[in-house]
C-alpha cells in the first residue's frame, strides 16, 4: 500500500519535471505580456513615448468595440462565417489527400513535394507580395490556378459563371490552406502499425471496413488537432478582415489600448469555440494510451 502511494507520488513529481520548461517559459515569456495587454485593454494612455502613464477607464474600450465602432462587428461576423465554412472542407480534403499520398504508387515523392509547395510559398512575405502587389487579376488567377473558363461565361451568363468562380475560389483557398493538415494526417497514417491492418485483413475485412474501423479511430487524435489548428489559423490569418483592422488600429491610429480590447473579445470568442470543439470531440477521439482515467486501455 505504501509502495503504491510512493509510485503515485513519484509519477506526480515526474509530471512536474517534464513540464517544468513550460512552466518556466510561461512565467518568463508569456505571463507578463498577457497581463500587460489585459491592463492595456482596460486603460487609456496619453502618448506612446511614456507608456507607463496610463489611466484606468474600465470597460470603455470594450463598449466602444461593440456599440460605437462600426467596423469591428461586421468584420468579425465575416471571419466567423469563413471559418465555419472552410474548416470542415479543409479537414476532410486534407484527410482524403493524405490518404491518397500514403498509398504505395509511382511518383509519390514528387506528388508530396508538389502538394507542399503552397505550404512553403504560402506563408511569409512571398505570399503577401503575390497577394497585394502587382496586377491583381493575374495574381488572383495565379492563386486560383484556374480562372473561370470563358466558355462557361458565354454559355450560362454572368450569374452562373460568378457562382462558378466563387465555388472555384473557395476550393482553391481550401487547397492553399491545407498544407500543414495534410502533413499532420500523413504522419498519423504512418504511425499506424501495419500489424493492425494485417490482422484486419486476416479477418477478411474489406477496405471500407478497415478505413472506418482502423484508420479513422487511429487518426482521430490528429483530426482533433487539425480542427483546432484550422480554426485558429483561420482566425489569426494576417490577411483576414479583423486582423487587418487590428493592424490598422494599432499601428496606423496608434491606439494600442483599443486594439488590445478588441483582440481580447476576439480571442475569448476563439477560446469558447475551441472549448466547444474539445467538448464535442471528447468522446469521439480514440487514444491507445489512456493515463489516469480509471486504469489504462
Amino acid at each position, binding site marked *: 500500500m505504501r509502495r503504491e502511494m510512493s509510485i503515485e507520488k513519484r509519477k506526480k513529481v515526474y509530471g512536474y519535471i517534464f513540464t517544468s520548461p513550460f512552466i518556466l517559459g510561461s512565467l518568463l515569456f508569456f505571463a507578463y505580456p498577457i497581463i500587460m495587454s489585459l491592463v492595456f485593454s482596460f486603460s487609456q494612455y496619453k502618448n506612446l513615448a511614456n507608456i507607463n502613464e496610463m489611466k484606468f477607464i474600465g470597460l470603455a474600450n470594450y463598449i466602444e468595440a461593440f456599440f460605437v465602432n462600426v467596423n469591428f462587428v461586421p468584420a468579425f461576423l465575416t471571419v466567423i462565417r469563413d471559418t465555419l465554412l472552410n474548416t470542415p472542407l479543409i479537414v476532410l480534403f486534407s484527410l482524403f489527400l493524405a490518404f491518397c499520398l500514403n498509398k504505395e504508387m509511382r511518383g509519390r515523392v514528387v506528388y508530396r513535394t508538389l502538394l507542399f509547395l503552397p505550404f*512553403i510559398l504560402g506563408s511569409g512575405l512571398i505570399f503577401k507580395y503575390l497577394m497585394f502587389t502587382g496586377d491583381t487579376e493575374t495574381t488572383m488567377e495565379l492563386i486560383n490556378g484556374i480562372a473561370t473558363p470563358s466558355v462557361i461565361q458565354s454559355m450560362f451568363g454572368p450569374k452562373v459563371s460568378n457562382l462558378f468562380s466563387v465555388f472555384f475560389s473557395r476550393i482553391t483557398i481550401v487547397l492553399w490552406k491545407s498544407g500543414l493538415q495534410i502533413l499532420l494526417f500523413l504522419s498519423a497514417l504512418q504511425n499506424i502499425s501495419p500489424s493492425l491492418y494485417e490482422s484486419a485483413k486476416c479477418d477478411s475485412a474489406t477496405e471500407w471496413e478497415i478505413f472506418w474501423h482502423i484508420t479513422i479511430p487511429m487518426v482521430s487524435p490528429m483530426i482533433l488537432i487539425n480542427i483546432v489548428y484550422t480554426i485558429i489559423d483561420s482566425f489569426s490569418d494576417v490577411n483576414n478582415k479583423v486582423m487587418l483592422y487590428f493592424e490598422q488600429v494599432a499601428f496606423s491610429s496608434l491606439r494600442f489600448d483599443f486594439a488590445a480590447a478588441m483582440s481580447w473579445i476576439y480571442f475569448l470568442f476563439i477560446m469558447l469555440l475551441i472549448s466547444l470543439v474539445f467538448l464535442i470531440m471528447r468522446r469521439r477521439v480514440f487514444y491507445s494510451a489512456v493515463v489516469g482515467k480509471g486504469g489504462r486501455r
Partner: protein
Amino acid sequence: MKGSAISLKDNLSALRARKTFQRAVNIRSHIIRLFLHIFLIVVAFVFLYPFLYMMITSVKSESDLRNLSVVWIPTQLHWKNYVTAAAYLDIPVHLKNSLMITIFSTIGHILSASFIAYGLARFKFRGRTLMFCIVIFSIIVPPQLVLLPQYMMYSSMGMINTYFPIVLPTFFGYGLRGGLYIFLFRQAYLGMPTEIEDAAQVDGYGYLSIYWRIALPMMRPSIVVSCLVSIVWHWNDYFEPSVYLLQIHRLPLPSMLVTVFNGTRDVMDAILNDKLDMLVTDGVVMAAIVICILPVLLVFTFIQRGFVEGVERSGLVE
C-alpha cells in the same frame, strides 16, 4: 474415374473463375490507381502553376516582360536577373542569419515540445488540464496582441538586435506557435500504446531515460513533421525579425525581399544614379523569391524522405 474427371473439370472452372476474378480485381485497382493519378495531377497542377510562372518570369529579360506574346517560353534565358537579385539580397550574410535562426529554433521546438508533451501525456498531476489549456491558449493569442509588452520586456532585458527573442522561447515550448508542437506530440503520445514503456519501467529504467531512449525514437513521424513545419515557418517568418532585429545586417534572408520590392524600377533614375545593374524588373523580383525559397524547398524534399511507411515499432503482440 468419372468422379475424378468431374472434379478435375470443376477444379479447372474454379481456377478459371478465380483467374477472371483476380483479373477483375486487378483491373479495378488499376482503374482506381489511374483516377488517383489524375486527381493528384490536377491538384498538383493548381499548385505548380504559380510556381512555374515564378520560375519562368525569373529568367525573362526586360523586353520579354514587356512583350505580351511571350508568356511561357522566354526568347532567351536572362540569368542576369539572378545576379541583380543576389546583389540586393546580400546572400552570404543573410543566409547565415537565416540558418542560425532556423536551425536553433527548430532544435528548440522539437526538444522542448517532445519533452513537455511527454509529461502532459503520460503523467497525472494536479494542474495538468490547466497546463494543457495554457498550451492551447498560447497558440490562440494573436501575436499582435502581445507585441508591445513583449517588445518592452525584451528591450528591458537588453535582447533587442540579438536572436534571443526569437530563439530562446522555443526551448521553453513557446516561440513561433510553439504550443502547436506540444499539442502535436501530446496527441501522438496518447495515440501510442504504453506497453513497451511499462516493460522498460519494470526493467528498472527511469522515466527520463524511458523518454529519451524509447518514447522519443518511436515518435519519428511526429519529429519529421514538426521539423518540416518549424523550418518552413521560421524561414518564412518576417514578423518577429522585423520587430526584434533593427539592424539590416542581422535580418534573415527572406526579410531582405523588401529591399528588392522597394528597389528602383525607374530606368531613368537608374541611369542617372549609375545603377543600371540594380534596376528591378518583375524578373528580378521573381529571381529573388526563387533564391529565398530554394534552400527550404531542398531541405523539405530531403527531410520528407523521413516519412517511411510501415515502421514496425516493436515485436509487440497486441
